[in-house]
């Protein structure tokens, strides 16, 4: 799919693309975070029909809803593309000795070769957490590595 970017000086950027069904869609992304969705199909080809206007919160929510499965999908693809690499997720049990400790203290990568690439805490996602990142009971760790490596991380945090 080809997306054209049109600069709107002082306002933001307009993205335009044509859907598989042949509809020309435009998305006006304001500098302020507001967004407007338009469709070019009226009698005047230069003037689109305005479909939606979104506040910054609404457009964030929309992009999360539409974007989240895509991220997961690409994530799975990545694991598929490199033989031997897989992804897994695991919850930090409340009785783990690492509750309240930092990620660095688990020494997970040094010991297993697998990397913890993200931390999901409630509704928040902490992408590529650093070694100083503290851990809480119930955190979901997203791990990438070999099967053995992922099993190794599981063993470490359960301990």
């Amino acid at each position, binding site marked *: 799919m080809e997306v054209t970017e049109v*600069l709107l*000086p*002082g*306002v933001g950027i307009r993205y335009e693309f044509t859907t598989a069904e042949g509809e020309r869609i435009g998305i006006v992304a304001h500098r302020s975070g507001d967004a407007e969705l338009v469709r070019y199909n009226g009698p005047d080809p*230069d*003037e689109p029909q305005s479909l939606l206007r979104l506040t910054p919160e609404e457009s964030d929510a929309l992009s999360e809803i539409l974007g989240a499965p895509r991220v997961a999908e690409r994530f799975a693809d990545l694991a598929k593309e490199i033989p031997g690499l897989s992804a897994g997720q695991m919850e930090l049990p409340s009785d783990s000795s690492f509750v309240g400790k930092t990620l660095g203290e688990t020494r997970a990568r040094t010991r297993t070769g697998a990397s913890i690439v993200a931390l999901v805490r409630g509704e928040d996602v902490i992408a590529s957490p650093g070694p100083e990142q503290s851990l809480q009971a119930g955190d979901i760790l997203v791990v990438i590595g070999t099967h053995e490596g992922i099993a190794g991380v599981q063993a470490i945090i359960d301990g």
Partner: protein
Amino acid sequence: MHVSATLLMELGAVFLVLSFLAAVARRWAFSPVPLYLLAGLALGEGGIAPIPAVGEFVETGAAIGVVLLLLLLGLEFSTTEFTHSLRRHLPSALVDGLLNAVPGALLGWVLGLSWGGCLALAGITWISSSGIVARLLSDLRRLGNRETPSVLSILVLEDIAMAIYLPLMGSLAIGGTLGQMSLALGTALCALALAFFVSHRLHHVLGRLVDTQHSEQFLLRVMGLTLLVAGLSEFARASAPVGAFLIGLALSGPLADRARRVIEPVRDLFALVFFLAIGLTIDPRELVPLLPVALALAAVTAVTKVLTGWYAARREGAALRGRLRAGTVLIARGEFSIVIAGLAAGIEPSLVPLAAAYVITLAIAGPIATYLVGVLPARKAPRRRQSEAGA
């Protein structure tokens, strides 16, 4: 500390009345600027309800208002948008300057104004109000339209042309010998080069100077720096607004975004005081004889703006209605025409009432014209497809 009760009460009453007027204007997607000018006119000497007590405050406030208007104009500047606009829309901007500045300059010549007065009038008719136009495009939901990028690019190029125009105007307005004027202009242009250098190479230094977590301190630092530089440039005979504009240009990136958010409410307040002050300085009795001239100038330069927009939108491959929309939306003149008249008040005092009448006319007529063109039935418009627009 002695507080004048009359001053506070008069100011309070004025702000309340203006907030009501502004709300009415916004309700109909109009700019409140003409209403502020009219309010000033009504409250001034010879008006219906004179307010003598606020005089001193309004005078100081107006000076700060101009400085902040120009600071925000500078803050809007982004290098990517500027280079993009320059590369794609330079011919449109040249046509814009030629078609719209010339009628003003010609009228100045016919009226027998000085060189400075002619130049000021050229600027007044040339620059569209980026505030009014951007708001109209958003309110009338035209941001998705094909002609819109060309309209916005013209505004960006007009605004940046102010970087050369204002120092020139400032040095002419101060007067003096040719040597003094070229010295002032030279200083201003060096300062402009310095501002670009700072924004490109030294932005981290400037960032460290003004950046702080606390928004209150940030506001004070930006305001302090701006007023100081504005004062210095007034002292160097290059006029205060020019200095403020340069500070706006020098601040870039996230710093500029933040400064814009913090300064905007302050700007709104003091800009209002500035428009009010302009209205206050005008005696309605001297305005009346200037009305026919102002209206004729408005009519001519409305047509030239339509031609400008027509040309710019055609370059983008827009059809008839798109070209008319682009042309009519550009008609509105506003805050910067008034700023230029204010700058030139020292050499040509008659420009202030003329510019006020002119801006009031076009700030009201422009939005109406473009709204009407937008709702024209689309049936007769020739159908055009991507072929021409693909660029």
